């Protein structure tokens, strides 16, 4: 780690530590992994934005069906291309860390599932979500009737105000009762 870690000085490390749910070792590891993705001629690693395609090559994210959404949600880039700076990268890892609170996790989960970024989970969002979860291939996907039945059931359960969509507070209400959301909504480098 020697040479790469030296760029991340003590003060910044402790600041990052205060602002995220990560430990010192995790931040250093994240920095190492991040600087491996940097192009060689790039010297100022902290402000460089790594394009989405490079991020998706990380084995931790490669198999995740929501990997593109995750990049889009955590990217603060102005052009909405899903590229991540080191700060964004740390934000991502912090939200997916062991010690992140349920509130943070459910907030980001909601934004990840909200495919059209309109602030609610509508029928289209849910349909895309189901397709992501079933792998998106022909032999595993559900028939239209099954899909309709499934989404009707979900809306019946979690759409408390019956407006045909699931909003953030409804989503958090559902998630907060789930026994294994916190343990499975994790990404470890």
């Amino acid at each position, binding site marked *: 780690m020697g040479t790469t870690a030296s760029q991340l*000085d003590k003060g910044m490390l402790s600041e990052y530590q205060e602002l995220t749910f990560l430990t010192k070792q995790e931040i250093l590891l994240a920095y190492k992994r991040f600087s491996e993705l940097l192009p060689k001629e790039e010297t100022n690693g902290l402000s460089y934005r790594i394009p989405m395609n490079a991020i998706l090559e990380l084995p931790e994210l490669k*198999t995740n069906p929501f990997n593109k959404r995750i990049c889009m949600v955590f990217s603060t880039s102005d052009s909405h291309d899903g590229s991540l700076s080191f700060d964004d990268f740390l934000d991502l890892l912090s939200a997916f860390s062991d010690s992140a609170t349920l509130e943070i996790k459910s907030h980001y989960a909601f934004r990840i599932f909200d495919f059209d970024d309109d602030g609610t989970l509508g029928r289209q969002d849910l349909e895309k979500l189901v397709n992501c979860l*079933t792998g998106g291939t022909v032999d*595993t996907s559900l028939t239209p009737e099954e899909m309709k039945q499934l989404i009707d059931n979900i809306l019946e359960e979690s759409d408390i105000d019956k407006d045909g969509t699931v909003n953030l507070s409804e989503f958090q209400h559902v998630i907060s009762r789930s*026994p294994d959301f916190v343990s499975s909504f994790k990404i470890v480098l």
Partner: protein
Amino acid sequence: MLHKNSTLSYCLQSTKIHCLLLVFAHTVREFFFYRKEYKLFYQKILLICLFIPFLNESMSFLGDEQFEGGNKEKRHREKRRDGSKDRRKRANAKRRERSRADRENEEFEERLGKREKGRRGRVKNDQEAKKRDEQDSEDKENSEDKEVKPESLSPDELEKLKEAVDEKKKLIQSLRGKPWPMKKKLVTLQETLRIQSHDDQDFENFKTACIPWEMKIKEIESHFGSSVASYFIFLRWMYGINMILFGLTFGLVMVPEALMGRPYGSIPRKTVPRAEEASAMDFAVLWDFGGYAQYSVLFYGFYSNQRAIGWLKFRMPLSYFLVGVGTVAYSYMVVIRTMARNANESGVGDDNSFNFSWKMFTSWDYLIGNPETADNKFASITTCFKEAILEEQESRKDDNIHLTRFLRVLANFLVLCCLAGSGYLIYFVVRRSQKFALDGFENHTWWERNEVNMVMSLLGMFCPMLFDVISTLENYHPRVALQWQLGRIFALFLGNLYTFIIALMDEINVKREEENIVKFNITMWEASLYNGTVSENFTASPITIHPADVPRGPCWETMVGQEFVRLIISDTMTTYITLLIGDFLRAVLVRFLNHCWCWDLEAGFPSYSEFDVSGNVLGLIFNQGMIWMGAFYAPCLPALNVLRLHVSMYLQCWAVMCCNVPQERVFKASGSNNFYMAMLLVILFLSTLPNIYTIVTIPPSFDCGPFSGKNRMFDVIHETLESDFPAWFSKVFSYASNPGLVLPFILLMVLAIYYLQSTSKSYKEANVELKKKLQMVIQIMKIILLLPTTVNNWRNNNASFQGQEGEILLPKSRQLENESYSCLIIQTYCLRRKERVTFFSKKTYDNEVKKKSFPVVFSF
């Protein structure tokens, strides 16, 4: 310059000491001022402990500068030395020259003086330059600080920081406004500031670094998902418990006896008998825990019944008894506490109202980083969705219900046959081994000697496979099938263990009869010895017989301990060997023979093995049960188990990563956690039962172990109470253990449990009620929100509404069963707007209308 440097280093040193002293003095002062808040004091001490490494770190950071300063100083010294050399040379030259010509003298001295001046000037320049350098470097650092930090922080983070600073300011302001004494204000301020300080971070870092195998487990977690990792977390938890059990037995039983007790060979129970001496060091004997291993601190029989040993007057028998009780009590406490915590964590999610939503929103395991696992997960989620839909539609046809029923009954019958067969086999084998033991083990082959353990291990290995085959007959839902499978394996292991114990009990009885005969023989032997010596000489000198020659009884406690140790060893061996053959060898064969085989080995029949989480957890649980059962008679068992768990941690981590494929059906970790814990609790209870039985009913052997000579093992408590405690204490104790006091106490506890259970039930009911009310309120809110627009629409449509009556149909929902609530609310709403509302009675509307809408009639 030199002076400056030394003061600098001195200052640094003294600041270090000073800091420590300051913190210490501060804490001491605080301690005396606020004795009540002793907690704070401990925290401060902890802080000091944390400060020391931190200070050292910062010192090393400062030390670099100091070191550089030292270099400069060295350079200066060298320069000076050079200068003095110059001077000496010149002085020599001067002398020589003086002899030649005195004229040049003055000139030379002048020159020398100039040089001296020049040198001084150079030094000054150096100093200034150094100062400049220092300033520059400081400036650079400052500028770096100024430049780097804002750049690296995103605006969000900056805002957060600002908020934190603002909060601190607000806190100080609010503190200023509080009518508290200064001291209290200071303490609160320090506390709140300390929460946000770096020391917490350091402590957290330290804590995470202390958790063993964290990285290994995380690596597995990222490959195989959380369910496989849950096994390893369970294994680590088990390791922790065993470490504590080991610490207790090792520190309070084995070490005191080994250090302070009588040495080996001093009394008969600590000596290998003459008949066994020849083979006592043979490896085969030691491997069976006979010979020297049997007559050592590893087993019950070695401990002497001296009340107090060594210069510490350590009460050995009492300690032995209390450690035995304490390990069990500690295990109960830990298991129950963990269960309660798990129940708290998962207790919220036991209602089934969000079945579909959970499947949708929380079924993906984000830890999965392996493509194969991901594919399996996709498939399992899809089937899960489909099954759920099918169940919801209730279109599942059970066309051939009679056949399924028949098959299920048949399967259970077969399983019962298996269980009975394995139980009988074990009983038979144990009885046979007793026969061999009577003959002497030397006359038999290795197999015959180790038959019991081998048969038990083999049964534990093959019966689950058999059950797996049988369960395909039943055609259950996979989750139900898994539960059945686990239940059957549990029953098998339990049955085997209990048959083993019953057989052991038989053996204990045999040994005790043998003991009676030996006792009689010993009295005869002693009498003959006495008579013999009397006849030889009349001096009453004490008879000295080597302890190895003294006849002794069969020590049944040691025998039980040995049996358990052998069982654990053979169990461990089978586990490791199946791991190596079943997983590693299979993986190697599949991998390398695949190139030259008729069919695809990787995808087809043998393929790679899956990691069987439930089977492994069950194995671990049963192993622990055996430890709990045997630990009283063999104090070495926890140590053995620690070793075993340590090795299996590394071995299984390696095996999982190199030769297992992810499971096809990935089960969630959280659901089964408490299931395993419950099994552990059952095992713990069942393994303490035989122990308690033997302790309470069977008198200990007369010539071995810490309780020899007593009628029952627990008499040691009685003895201690009588001789080591004042008389009133034993009186109090005897009153307290009086049934008249104990029974009401138990009754009180039962009542408390009943009360707590009923309150928790009522809370649950209240929860359900509140949920219903919440839904209703939301519906009513919707109606209210809709009402103004509906009324306005109605008004627009009916221009001459004055004095008229009309009706508005509001959407009616399924949840809104109690209509009067909403009517009331609508009425109040309209009253506030000075509009009178009347309602139709329900009966006036036919059912068709009612189903779709909710009638409200206005009249203005």
